[in-house]
């Protein structure tokens, strides 16, 4: 080899941690979140009240818990549209057990188990039979909720034991609700799993290039299966919280949540096509969506109008950076 090809020392990174953080999606979300917070505080005198802020968290905690697992699943290039139906089925199963006279720990266990089983069902269909997850979960979305309808029909389960109420209505300390604590704990757990473990690295690798990941010795199917299990589990946990909060189970419980959760994940900067995204991003998106809903609510704006805003936000946050790059490229092109 000729002499000018001396081995070079390649630096680990060119940009410092601070520089990277500054340019990240999360920074954009933090700015939006702060803006929403300030606007809310200015436009309603009721916003800056600890109890009210605490109440507002219920608007997103349950959905966000599912969104964490969903984020990982989407990073890996799959999706689960059946989450809301898993919540319904898990809740129905809990109601069934409650009527049969089981105690609170058993109810919780039932909810979680049903969640995991539903996740496993999706996982098997996707990884064993190699079916596209979007279609499979559109199917199981009908199936799971359909089972709830078959079981419950036009009736409802209510009369959950009072000890069960804690999960959705209990406070750990002052205004800090149990759900909020769960939300924070799961945010940390999922952030660690996705960003700090080998498993998380495998998820990113799969999302960017599943074939390449397989060729690198990653057990792609197994990782995906686990992700479906986790999504099912989180739906089960959300079912426990929601059922406890409502104190009753109807088959229509959590209807339409899947799209809100996917919106939360995408708004959080997770690429719907897989490969990138972070948990802090999803946490911020959850806070933003929760605050927007609550802020509009304080002004008695109907929920449907808030959703226009969320929809616009979803498209805008993805379109604007792209339009910006395109405009820059066009300008550079003209100069050249």
């Amino acid at each position: 080899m000729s002499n000018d090809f001396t081995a070079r020392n390649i630096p680990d990174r060119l940009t410092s941690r601070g520089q990277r953080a500054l340019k990240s999606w999360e920074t954009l979300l933090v700015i939006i979140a702060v803006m929403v917070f300030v606007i809310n505080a200015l436009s309603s005198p009721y916003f800056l009240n600890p109890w009210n802020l605490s109440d507002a968290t219920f608007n997103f905690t349950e959905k966000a818990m599912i969104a964490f697992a969903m984020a990982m699943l989407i990073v890996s290039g799959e999706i689960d549209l059946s989450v809301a139906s898993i919540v319904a089925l898990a809740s129905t199963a809990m109601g069934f057990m409650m009527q049969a006279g089981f105690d609170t720990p058993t109810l919780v266990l039932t909810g979680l188990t049903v969640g995991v089983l539903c996740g496993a069902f999706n996982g098997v269909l996707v990884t064993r039979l190699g079916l596209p997850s979007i279609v499979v979960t559109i199917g199981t979305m009908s199936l799971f909720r359909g089972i709830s309808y078959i079981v419950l029909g036009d009736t409802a389960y209510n009369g959950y034991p009072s000890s069960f109420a804690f999960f959705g209505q209990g406070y750990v300390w002052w205004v800090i609700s149990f759900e909020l604590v769960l939300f924070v704990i799961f945010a940390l757990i999922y952030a660690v799993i996705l960003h700090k473990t080998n498993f998380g690295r495998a998820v990113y690798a799969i999302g960017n290039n599943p074939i390449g990941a397989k060729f690198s010795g990653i057990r792609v199917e197994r990782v995906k299966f686990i992700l479906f299990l986790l999504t099912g589990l989180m739906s089960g946990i959300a079912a426990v919280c929601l059922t406890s909060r409502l104190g009753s189970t109807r088959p229509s419980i959590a209807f339409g949540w899947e799209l809100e959760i996917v919106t939360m994940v995408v708004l959080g900067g997770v690429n719907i096509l897989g490969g990138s995204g972070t948990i802090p991003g999803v946490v911020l998106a959850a806070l933003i969506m929760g605050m927007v809903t609550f802020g509009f609510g304080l002004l008695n704006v109907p929920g449907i109008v808030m959703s226009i805003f969320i929809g616009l936000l979803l498209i805008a946050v993805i379109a604007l950076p792209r339009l910006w790059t395109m405009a820059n490229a066009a300008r550079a092109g003209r100069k050249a």
Partner: protein
Amino acid sequence: MIKQFIKSREALLVLAILILLGLISTRFSGFIAPQNMASVFQDTSILIMLALGQMVVILTRCIDLSVASNLALTGMVVGLINVAAPDLPVPVLLLVAITLGAFLGAINGILVWKVDIPPIVVTLGTLTIYRGIIFLVSNGAWINAHEMSASFKAFPRYELLGLPVLSWMAVVTIILFYLLVVRTPLGRAFYAVGGNPHAAVYTGINVGFTRFMAFVIAGAISGVCGYLWVSRYAVAYVDIAGGFELEVVAACVIGGISIAGGIGTIGGAVLGALFLGIIKNALPVVDISPFWQLAISGSAIIIAVAVNARSERKKGRIILKKAEHAQ
């Protein structure tokens, strides 16, 4: 030809539908009477039309989750126009519906084509935006039957040769889509773009524009269905057809339209929609609680994808000469 058909997905679906009808008729023989079948078809017409619109979008490897919102918004706008100007003839309203629907579809299309946002994100966004706009334009108020003009409500019900116009609209849509998809360059481009977008570029097809057109067409169909829905049920409000987008996608999936793009037929989409329509109509008749409907259609979707995936499974390339002959 016949041999080919027997092996096709459509044949399987026809068989499934026949078995289904057979089962239903053992419980309730009146169900398969021509008159009742005509009414089932009428009930399924809107689903068929939307499934066809969705099909061309899915063919190009996209998805349109906003069809139901588009339908509801267009329906509300047409309804409001009717309230404001009851004398405006129905053809004008139909034109408005098509144009508005196509425009809403074009917004999706532009965002996919020019800004390169994944279709699922775009239409997830417009799904909520369009729905919300209905509230803004209507102020949340319903338009009820008594506020609509008689001709507005009569159009889809008007009978021609024993079938209501609503059914004829579906028939015409099926024919037009057949011609579009099979006999026009754009229709073939849908398949090319979805089957192999990379190769499509080499054949001079503009991939982005083709997708845009698919969204516009799906939007136009949603628009027409918006008017039909509102006049048929004689009501317009924010939530009409809520969640219907998934039923439409389900009809496509059951009909063998591959979500990965490039594969699917008009017959498949129509049969998929009919399959769902028959189940929906039959359940109350055969005295199965309507609460079973959701679980049944869910299972149908899962079985359909599994079956399709099996037949679609790429034949391995064959290197060994022996194996090639054995095929």
